[in-house]
Structure formats: C-alpha cells, structure tokens
C-alpha cells in the first residue's frame, strides 16, 4: 500500500521492534515475506508489517499486558487530560431518555475498562433521571473486560441490567443484531482494529436508522511546530514511561506508532462517510490542538419509496 511505504521511508528505518513476547507469534516482519499466501494480506502493527490474521492477536497481547496499569499509564501519558476528553465526549453526546422518548441502547466498542460506559450511565441518571438506558461494553480483549467488570461491581453498576460486558471483534460484532443500537461509541480503540473500514461497516449495520456513531481517537496535531514537539514527546517520553511505570516498553512503543499510523482527521471523516454515515460540517471536532478528535456520524433513515 502506498501509505505503508510512505511511513516506512519517512519514519524510523528500524524494521524490528521485536520483543521476545512478540517474536513468538510471527517470523517475518520485513519485506522478505515474498512467499506469503496471497489470501493472507499484510497490514501494519505500529511500524512493523505483519500478516492480517496475526494483527488481532498481537493487539490482544498488547492490551493484556497493559490492562492492569491502563489507567495509571493514561494519566501519566496525557497528564490526566484524557479524563477531560472523555467527560467532554460523553457530555457532548448527552445520552439518556429525552422527554417523550425511549431509553437508549448504547454499544461501547473497545471500551474494556468501562471508562466511557460509566460516564454514559451517570449522564443518563443524573441529567435525565434515566435508569433504564443500558450499555453493552464490547472488547476483543477479555482481560480489559474483566478489569471493567471489577470496576462496575465496585462502583455499583453491577449487578443490574444497565451494563453488560461482551467479548466482540469490532470488525464483525457477531452477537449484536442489526439495527438494534441507538448510540455506537468507540473511544481510543479504532486505531487498533485491523480493517478499520470493516469496523465502520459493522457499526453501520448494528445502528438503528437515525442512530449516532461517535468515535474519539488520537489525530494529527497542527500547527507543525507543535506537532514536532508532540512527536518528540510521543516517541521519547511515552515508551520510557511505559518502561518505568508498567515495565513494558514495547506495548507503549506500539501505541505511539499506531497513533502515528492512524489516518488524518479529514481522511477518517471521509472513511466514515464511505461507510454510509451522514456527517455534519467537516465531520470532526478537534481537542487539545488535534492530539485527539471526535468524529460523529448519523445512520440515515430509510428512504420510504
């Protein structure tokens, strides 16, 4: 793919960030994989190149190893600003039953530890006095979901039918019926999906017509001088913090590389439109100079003939 070679030449010449853990799973990361099966295409894992079939398990490994210290690391990396982003994200969506309306069915994808789900339930309860809106938290990684379940129990959201946790692949969402979800959110998860367009298509499938798709993800910083500082910080400080706080440099190296790999705000907004969503204006709002952005789309109502 043209994008891959662009990143390969522009970014580090390094071909291997092989940690013993990752080396177990794949044998070739360089361009010497000419005898690979044509059906097993290659994709990127940070700056490495891996077979598509392997990327999901490699991502799962990353998140298994970061699950326990996920929040501490998020606080350390973003100086606590991620909490402000998440608060803003939920408040701008304002989930909850509106007067004369029905309680919402929300699907939070890649929401393992429950950050966004808890905020949604709180918004519904406190702003709209709605205790019937429910959230399904779906994640590909069972360890993150277990972390979320523990927190839900501790905070009192469980046991109840307001929140449930499911292991799901964002690209397929096998157990979620079509046209069943009012609000689909994915927060800091979509860059880890192997085929992003598939995930967008699945989102389109499970949403009801008129349902809202909302995605918050890291994006490109502008202006350029600020971006230069941001890149330096990302590639120097974050893996170092990962080593000091979590004892895992490689997972955080993967995280910053995957951030760099993710399409720009405009490109991703176009991908959302290509999946069939309607967007307003540019389709996205930037947070903190573009460090993160929120994209929103609506599944169009069926055209009655």
């Amino acid at each position, binding site marked *: 793919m043209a994008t891959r070679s662009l990143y390969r030449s522009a*970014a*580090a*010449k*390094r*071909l*291997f*960030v*092989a*940690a*013993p853990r990752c*080396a177990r799973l794949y044998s070739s990361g360089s361009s010497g994989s000419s005898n690979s099966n044509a059906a097993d295409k290659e994709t990127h894992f940070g700056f490495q190149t891996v077979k598509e079939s392997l990327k999901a398990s490699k991502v799962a490994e990353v998140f298994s190893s970061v699950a326990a210290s996920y929040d501490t690391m998020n606080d350390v990396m973003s100086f606590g600003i991620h909490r402000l982003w998440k608060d803003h994200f939920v408040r701008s969506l304002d989930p909850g039953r509106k007067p004369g309306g029905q309680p919402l069915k929300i699907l939070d994808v890649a929401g393992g530890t429950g950050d966004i789900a808890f905020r949604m339930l709180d918004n519904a309860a406190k702003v709209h006095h709605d205790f019937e809106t429910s959230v399904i938290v779906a994640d590909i990684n069972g360890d993150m979901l277990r972390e979320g379940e523990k927190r839900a129990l501790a905070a009192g959201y469980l046991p109840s039918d307001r929140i449930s946790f499911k292991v799901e692949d964002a690209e397929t969402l096998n157990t979620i019926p079509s046209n069943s979800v009012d609000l689909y959110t994915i927060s800091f998860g979509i860059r880890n999906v192997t085929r992003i367009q598939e995930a967008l298509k699945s989102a389109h499938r499970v949403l009801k017509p008129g349902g809202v798709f909302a995605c918050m993800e890291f994006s490109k910083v502008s202006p350029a001088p600020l971006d230069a500082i941001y*890149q*330096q910080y990302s*590639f*120097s*400080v974050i893996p*170092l913090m990962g*080593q*000091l706080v979590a*004892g895992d*440099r490689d997972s955080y190296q993967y995280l910053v590389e995957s951030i760099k790999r993710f399409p720009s705000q405009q490109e991703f907004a176009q991908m959302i439109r290509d999946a069939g969503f309607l967007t307003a204006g540019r389709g996205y709002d930037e947070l903190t100079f573009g460090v993160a952005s929120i994209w929103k789309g609506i599944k169009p109502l069926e055209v009655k003939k």
Partner: protein
Amino acid sequence: MAILTHLPRQLLPTTPGRLFLLLPATTRAFSALSRPPPNYPGHVPLTTPERVLLGAGSALVCFFNPRRADLIAACGEATAVPYFIYRLRDAMLRDATGRRILRERPRITSKSLDLAQLRRLRDGSVGREYVRWLDRERVSPDTRSAVRYIDDPECAYVMQRYRECHDFYHALTGLPVVREGEVALKAFEFANTLIPMTGLSMFSVLTLKPRERRRMWATYFPWAVRNGLGAKEVINVYWEEELETDVDTLRSRLGIEMPPDMRSIRKAEKERQRREKEMMKGV
C-alpha cells in the same frame, strides 16, 4: 582529535586509548523519531537525554521498589555507558578465559542448567553449592531480562553475562537474597566490576534497618571492598566449566574469602530479640 575518533578502538594506543573509552560507541547524532537500526534483536538505541532520563527514573523507582528487577537492569544499562561497560569488556579481553567467554558467548538460563544433574554432583563442588544456595533461598535461575539499551553488541553480551552470573556470585559468597545480602553483594560487585548501577545500589543502605546498617558498615562493606578490589575479575570465570571444581579451590584461586554467614547472624539476632520480648512480657 577528530582523526583519532575515526580509528577503530583496537588501534588506539593503550594508555591514552583508555580515555577514548569515554566516547560513545556511535558518534552519529539521531533523534527519537529516526533511530538507527538495531544492532541486535531487542536493541533500542537511546539518545543521551533519554538515557539520562531512564537512568535517573529507574534509579528513583528502584530505590522505593527494589522488587522491580527489570528497572534495576535498565538502570544498569543506562548508566554503564560511556566508560564502564567498555572497561569491563576490556578486562575480559585481557584474560584468556575472558576472551574465550566473549568468543563462545555462553548463556545461563533456566533451561541451560540441569538442576537435577547439579544436585547429584559432589558436595563442595561449585555446582552442588550453587544448587544448595538456590534451594536454601528458594529461588530459581530465572530468566534475567535481556539487555536492550547498550549499543555495542559485545558489550551488551558482557552486561547480559554479568546479569546471568549474579546468582553464582551469591553462591560463591554465601550471601542470601534478603535486602541486606543483596546490598553487600552489590558492594562486592562494584569493587570488582565497577558497574555504576552496583555503586548506585549503595543508596539502598538507607532503607535498611539500623541494626542491619551497623552490620553493613562494620563487617560487610569492609569485606566487600577488600575482596572486590583484591580478587580477580569474577566476570572472567567460565562458570559452565567450573561446576565440578571444588568451591574452596575456586575461592582461593580468585582470592575471595567468605563473609560471616548472614543468615545465621540474622537468625541468631531474631532469636535474641524474641527472647528479650518474652522476658519483657514476663516482667
């Protein structure tokens, strides 16, 4: 000066050549965004500010949490350049066995050592005493973290070898795995190998109990300095070949005397404290 930095190290004259050990192995400047390719699997070339941050950060975290073995390792690697790891490698090059170790690059892992077979060795042999120490301390030759932050592959191996031989140094000196024993052994290692992290570990003396600290100053530090400086370089011991050697012979060959047995001293002291407490209760 500029011309001399382009000469390979081997051609530099020995005495002033020592000063060139202060130069980094790679004089190419790079940033975190464009790191040079790794020199060995797992290698992460660090810029100088990153190295400083890693060294300082890991030292700080380790001081408060000495169980973070991965950070102790990282601290060792970050602080070993520019001079110290090259000095250690050169010390290996000056010795015939050291040269052989560098050529053959043996690794000590939980797989490469057959503990059952070591237990069958003669009492008093290095291998038997090593396994006896492992059993007494209830530890295993666990896989040490791989070296990542040293640029020169040979020096990376030297650091890896030091790390993997650490348990053998425990067995050689009889020091236990408690904090006091580790500090005493690190003092010995600093005097013998001059690896900066071992010297920095001396700060953990501040975290010891007052009685332990007194023992350290009175007995173990003097022992460590005396033996570390006086003994031959322990990095040059080919442990895989010495497993059947008599351990006392090895100690006298290296010039190491056993320190007072820390475990029995600690046990006697705990006994005394317990008896005193009981007497106080009785009063």
